[in-house]
Each structure stands twice: as structure tokens, then as C-alpha cells.
């Protein structure tokens, strides 16, 4: 069995999770602080990949990243970067696609903390940043862990967006879910089964780990 699709999936999911942690923490904190129109609109946009068919997102990202148009053309002409049918393109698409899985649980957890904790910290002279890092963040650790696990698992399971943006280039964009589709297309059910079983077991283990880790804190891995 060719292990490169599995390795590529794990690499994609790891990089996406790490990037989303860096983006998701400040974004979730900002969203948790109010209900202004800008926040509501942005939250709706972030949540849309949950309900939108992946092919729709993939289609628009394909247009946006295309070296013949707009942003994709500018990136190609200025920095010689091509995002379609490339691994960096997959990362960017995965970050957008998995954003709600990182931001949602962290935002809810922050909103459930008593406002008086941050207020107490401010009256002790602590800045907003220090308060977030030393008071709020340690108390939402389990939700951050859940968000990371769900983002990772969701990225591993990506198919539609990956196929639209990345295609099926071995060693570059052919992740495990694409390799299964490719094997079935070629009537190679044995290989498809190997990849499927691996993904099934892998996903089961990480989701169960999240449940065990948070068994006293969350009712569902999405909280």
C-alpha cells in the first residue's frame, strides 16, 4: 500500500490545526466579546462551511486561486505562487473549511465564563492580553483541546474542497480521502478498503480520546 496519501492527510491536518489555533484563539475571543452587526456577519461567514456543500466552497476557492483571475493572478504574477493544485492551496482551503470547528467551541467556552473573572483581573491592573492568557485561557483548556481534535479530524475527512482545489496529484495533493475515491474509480476495492479502514480507526481513536479527556467537562465534543 502506498502510504503517501495517509502521510499527506496527517501533514495537512496537523498544519491546518496549528494555523487555526493561532487564528482561532484571537478570533473566538473577539467574537465572544459582543453582538455587533460586524461580529454577527463575520460569525455567519465563519459558520457557513458547516452547512455549505464543500463543492460550492471548493468552486469559489478554485476561481479565487486561479492564476488567470484576481487574487490568484496577483499571487502568481507578484510572488510566483500558485495555489490551485498545490499543497499550500490545500492548506489555505482547509483553514477556511475547518474554521468553524476551531472557532465555535472556543467562542462558546469563553462566553460561558463569568464576566467578573476578567473584570477582577482588570481591577488588579492586568491588561486584556494578560487576562486572556493567564485567567481565561487556562479555564477553557478542555474546549481548546476539543476544538483542536475536531479540526484535525475534520481536515482528515475533507473530500469535496480538496478534490476541487487540489485535484489528485500523487505526493502533493492526493490525500487519503482522494486516494479512496481514486481506488474505487479504478475498481481497486482492496486498496480503497485499506485506506478506509485506516481512516475509520484513526478518526474513532481521536474522537474517543477527546471524549475521554473531556468526559467531566463537555456533553458533546462540539461544546
Amino acid at each position: 500500500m502506498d502510504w503517501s496519501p495517509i502521510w499527506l492527510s496527517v501533514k495537512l491536518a496537523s498544519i491546518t490545526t496549528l494555523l487555526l489555533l493561532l487564528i482561532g484563539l484571537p478570533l473566538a475571543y473577539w467574537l465572544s466579546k459582543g453582538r455587533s452587526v460586524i461580529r454577527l456577519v463575520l460569525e455567519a461567514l465563519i459558520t457557513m462551511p458547516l452547512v455549505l456543500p464543500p463543492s460550492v466552497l471548493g468552486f469559489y476557492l478554485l476561481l479565487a486561486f486561479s492564476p488567470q483571475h484576481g487574487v490568484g493572478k496577483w499571487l502568481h504574477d507578484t510572488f510566483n505562487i500558485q495555489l490551485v493544485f498545490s499543497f499550500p492551496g490545500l492548506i489555505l482551503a482547509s483553514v477556511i473549511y475547518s474554521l468553524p470547528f476551531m472557532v465555535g467551541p472556543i467562542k462558546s467556552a469563553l462566553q460561558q465564563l463569568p464576566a467578573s473573572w476578567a473584570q477582577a483581573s482588570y481591577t488588579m491592573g492586568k491588561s486584556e492580553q494578560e487576562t486572556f492568557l493567564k485567567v481565561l485561557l487556562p479555564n477553557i483548556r478542555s474546549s481548546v483541546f476539543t476544538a483542536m481534535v475536531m479540526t484535525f479530524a475534520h481536515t482528515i475527512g475533507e473530500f469535496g474542497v480538496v478534490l476541487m482545489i487540489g485535484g489528485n496529484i500523487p505526493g502533493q495533493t492526493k490525500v487519503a480521502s482522494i486516494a479512496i475515491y481514486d481506488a474505487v474509480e479504478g475498481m481497486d476495492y482492496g486498496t480503497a478498503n485499506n485506506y478506509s479502514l485506516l481512516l475509520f480507526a484513526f478518526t474513532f481513536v481521536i474522537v474517543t480520546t477527546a471524549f475521554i479527556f473531556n468526559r467531566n467537562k463537555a456533553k458533546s465534543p462540539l461544546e
Partner: protein
Amino acid sequence: MIAIDIHKKLKVGARETDLNVKLQADKGSLTVIHGPSGAGKSTFLKVIAGLMKPEQGTIIVNDQVWLDTSNNINLSPQERRAGFVFQNYALFPHMTVRQQLAFATNDTKWIDRSIAIGQLQDHADHKPDYLSGGQQQRLAILRAMANKPSLLLMDEPFSALDQTTKVGLIADFKVLWNELLTTVIIVSHYPQELAGIATQELYIGA
């Protein structure tokens, strides 16, 4: 000496009211605020601490202007550093007694003394979940005082305590407030619990 004069619109359910409060208090005095629920007592304390902004007003504490809306002066809560004891204590669940105090001050001698005053020596390395209601309350007050603030604001601090614990606690802290010349403002549903200790009372009506 502190001088406060604020005007703030309050929304209680569907009803809108105006909170207009004037207060003058000498350094080292203890003011008890009482009045019906929803009248704005907690809001008043938060306005003083800088956690809420009134539409209009001035707050002057020991000759320093904390708020003057007509001159666009509004110090942040970090700049005001008023000690604040919240009704729900606002203790940080992940920090031990000593860590909560160390979060507020670097003065290790003062931290040791605070732990002794609060009779928390046996619990210095315990987190709030392992403390009784009275111990949590003492820690909340000591943490609010760890910076040795000139002004201490307390929102219903004794509501969860029985009468004996309450009397003992107030007596213990009165000694400390006298020593530091702390000006104290306490919101209480039962002003009589502070009879004999309070310098003045302020009624905030609905």
C-alpha cells in the same frame, strides 16, 4: 477623600431608569449602600471601578481625576486599580490561594501576611473549590486588597455567610482597613450588619 457624581441610564428588563448618585467620603471611611434590587447599586460600583461608563459624571479619588466626562477623562480599570470584591467572589478556579494573591501583587511579605490574616495558612496551596464559603470570601477580599488600593469596592460581600462568620470577618478586616486607611464602599441588602462600623449610609432608590 473621594467625590463622585454620576448619571447613567439603566435598563432593567424592559424598563429604563436613570441612575443619579452623588457621594462624598473621607479617606479611611466606610460607606454602606443599600436600596431595592435593580436600583443600580452594583452598576454604581462598576462605574467607580471603570468597568462601566456613565453618560455623564465625575469621579475624583484622593485628588486624582478618574472620570470627568465633560473633559473626556476616563481612566481604565487598570489605571484606577480600585479593589473590587464581586458578589460571586470571581476567584480563578485554576489558581491556588497563594497564586491568586501573587497574581495581584509581587510583595511576598504582604502575601504571607494576607494568608495569615485570612487564616488560610493550611489552605495556601489549595484551589478555591477546596475552600469553604467563608474562606473563599476572605480570599476574595484579601486578593482585592493585595494591591493596597486606596479604594475598596465590595458588592454584597457577606450575602452567603452566616451571622457569626460575618461579624468575625468584618471585625478582622476593619483592623486592616484602619491600618491602610482604605476607603471602603460596601453594597449590602442588610445595612444593619455594618451598624457601628459604617461611617455613612447611602440609599439608592429605584
